[in-house]
């Protein structure tokens, strides 16, 4: 009896102590009810290049889309309104001697409503910059020439920093002579450079890295 009393007092003390220390997350669901994919953290699913012909005001859209984010199913090059014909084809065509006002749009389409991430990139412009074919732009405003296609590209947006640098969400593309059927690689990279942005591609991490091909004819 005495032993029983002692044992039970031991158990009571122990359970009192235990109740003080156990801690579980409040929002923890049951294992059979996993968090649906659209509830998980942010993911960039869609990269859109929206190009407006300055003369005709026609808009052309080229995109790369990975609906379920990294991993899972592979992404694809999406239907454009011009010669980006098949879904696996990354080639698009620009007319010679033409100016295009170009905008990059980044979306998280796992969310409902769709989250426009490029808006956030613009807000944090001092920490972000787009690079084209890994070429560091020069001059003021920032500009560069894509070798091969000869396209001259000017950054038309500015971050709020000192000195003010381009972000690259908005650019002006000027094509020159036609280059025939040659497919020129076009690599577009978004670098996240918090506190280290200096106008070059070297610092920071890659947020976006997509590859198209351009013909000018």
């Amino acid at each position, binding site marked *: 009896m005495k032993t029983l009393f002692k044992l039970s007092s031991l158990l009571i003390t122990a359970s009192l*102590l235990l109740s003080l220390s156990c*801690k579980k997350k409040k929002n923890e669901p049951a294992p059979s009810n*996993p968090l649906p994919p659209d509830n998980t953290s942010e993911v*960039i699913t869609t990269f859109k290049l929206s190009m407006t012909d300055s003369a005709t005001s026609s808009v052309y859209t080229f995109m790369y889309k990975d609906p379920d984010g990294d991993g899972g199913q592979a992404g694809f090059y999406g239907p454009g309104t011009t010669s980006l014909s098949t879904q696996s084809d990354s080639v698009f065509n620009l007319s010679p001697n033409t100016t295009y006002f170009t905008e990059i749009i980044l979306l998280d389409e796992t969310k409902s409503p769709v989250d426009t991430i490029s808006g*956030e990139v613009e807000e944090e412009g001092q920490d972000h910059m787009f690079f084209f074919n890994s070429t560091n732009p020069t001059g003021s405003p920032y500009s560069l020439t894509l070798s091969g296609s000869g396209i001259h590209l000017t950054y038309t947006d500015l971050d709020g920093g000192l000195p003010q640098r381009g972000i690259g969400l908005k650019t002006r593309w000027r094509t020159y002579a036609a280059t025939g059927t040659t497919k020129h690689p076009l690599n577009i990279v978004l670098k996240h450079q918090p506190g280290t942005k200096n106008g070059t591609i070297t610092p920071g991490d890659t947020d976006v890295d997509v590859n198209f091909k351009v013909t000018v004819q």
Partner: protein
Amino acid sequence: MHDGKELDGTVITLLEKNSNYVTNDHGRFSISGLCEGNYSLLIQHLGCKDTIIKTMVKQNSFLSVKLPHSEIELSEIDIMDKRLEMVKTQTTDEISGKELDKTRGQTLGDALKTVTGVTTLNTGGTISKPMIHGLQGYRILILNNGIRHEGQQWGNEHAPEIDPFVAQKLSVVKGANSVRYGSDALGGVILVEPADLPDTASVTGEVNMIGASNGQSGTGSAILQGYFDKLKGFNWRVQGTYKKSGNVKTPEYYLKNTGVEEYNFSYALGYHRKKLGAEVYYSQFNTKVGIFPGAHIGNLTDLQNAFNANKPQDSLAGFSYDIGRPYQQIGHELAKGKLHYHFAPKWRLMAQYAYQYNSRQEFDKDKPLNDSLAALNLPELDYSITSQTGELVLEHDNIKRFRGQFGGSYMNQQNVYLGRFFIPNFINNTWGAFATERFVTEHWELEAGLRYDEKQLQSYFYENKNLVTPSLKFNNVSWNIGAIYKQGKYLNLFFNIGSAWRSPAPNELYSNGIHQSVGAIERGNKNLLPEQVYNATFTALLKLNHVFTEATLYHNQFTNFIYLNPSTKPELTIKGAYPVFNYQQANARISGADVKVTTDIFNHLKVTAKAMLLRAWNEDLNDYLVYMPSDRYTGELNYYFNAGKHFSNNFIQMNYTYVTKQWRVPQNTDFAAPPEGYRLLGFEIGSDLKFGKQTINLSIAGNNLLDVIYRDYLDRFRYYTDAMGRNFTIRLKIPLTIYDKK
């Protein structure tokens, strides 16, 4: 020994004269022809800790010496109120006493590294996972105070969530050992064992304080335990640890955001009478570990840039204790209740229940771009795993030379993710039953064990936006046969063969996505079969004159060894190209040798040499296995000396480690070629200071004394940064006796 037996075959060395004596059958010895004065005796016995005794000799003196037992435990079994601890036929190494003191302040993984055959898989200087004979993660079991430690073992950067200060002894059982502890222990078992609760009226304790120069870290740990004088049978213990460290420094630069903050506590309450014992135990482990941002990589281009850079991007930062993104926030709690009852002479029943809750939150380098999401500052990876284990064991001591254990165990486990998907939610139910018997004679101990386990794994996750709930069932048998041969005084042999298995883990079956901390896409394989190993281990302990040799040879033959196979083509994502690894199975083998030779032929001087050799081969691909430890050699000099009555057990130790380059790697599977081998020099000076009745153990140690710039093959940070530079550690241990009726 601890049971007071008279020890024959004990070697006594009179250090001043370098002369030897051996005890007779009654454990007696005598030395004649000495002058009066102070002498030091080194006392060595197989299975006991080497002990140095200082004595004053005047005419005829008598001396009785009690030896503490140690790593090679060959002792008889003390059955009264203790669990029936059988000497394992597998190779077992222990770290306790002074050796354990020397590891204080280190992580559990690093502390275990002193055992030959144990290496660590590191993520920088602060995260280390123990590896036994090249196997880690799910393939080794960690028993924390008798309970299977269950967390998220699958991640290479998920270190065991255990405070090493709870242990008074760390043991490593090398080789497959599933029969007693359940499936999965293909590589071995690590036992983290607290001291027994006190059984005489007393209140005692211990305070440990450790400071280290690299990382400017401070660790404090205290333990207090007692036995109630008035409440017969009740005993208790409370323990707590706090640790804070800042940025780690390589020889050339600081690594930003590599601090750690950790606080842990545990308590135990026990009731122990002759026939009945009960114990409750609770422990909590909390840590926040900063991850070096330069190692939190993006796509292949970023990786190449990081690898080609002389200095990592985030290396310029000075010293700081601040921990920002990326970091891990981990909590682990364990609550345990245990009962045992001697219901008949020589028979004992033990029942045990444990509850474990493990929370792992990993915060990426960058907050989400979306402001409202960023404001929540949620972890990108967030897992909670709850495990409940129950065990019932029946034990019997010598009955016609037979000793045995029979039992069953059950585990229920529930895993839930709250952040990005990488491994699914699951409910895992496992039960097993086992029996082992041992036949003991004067020279031989023979052992055989058999176990059956069944496991059901029910998973829940989304695939193409549809909820899928695959259920898998696995069952298999584990067994072992072992023998110990004791050839009198100078030779002991241990043989063991056995088989163990484990079912594929949820990450191996279902992971699908970027493993952020690895910077690769990992794809599970739903069709994986259980992995099985056949293991053979042979150990010889040999004592010849002054040379003590411990040699282990082992061979592991795997069928369906699960590994990550690199895909030849990287996968394109919106963030660029990522390397892809797919889970696959192959027949494989791992074999090797651990050798340790200790000699004390010189006065006051002990020389130790250790070697660890390992070979691992994928038999299906006819290629090496990736991420296996390279051969390594360690040399140690210990010099013991006298320094007056206030200083006892004085020692100076120099150690030298040579880790060879791992060139035995599969081709085209790694981001970068293995780094060169390296050599490290270290030292330690220690003494027991006496102030009146109070003793204080003080030691100062130095690691990587020459500030060598190196990278280790088994460190995931090797792609990005050099390893830690020179480090000095000062350790203070203050044993406390607040009250002792003895």
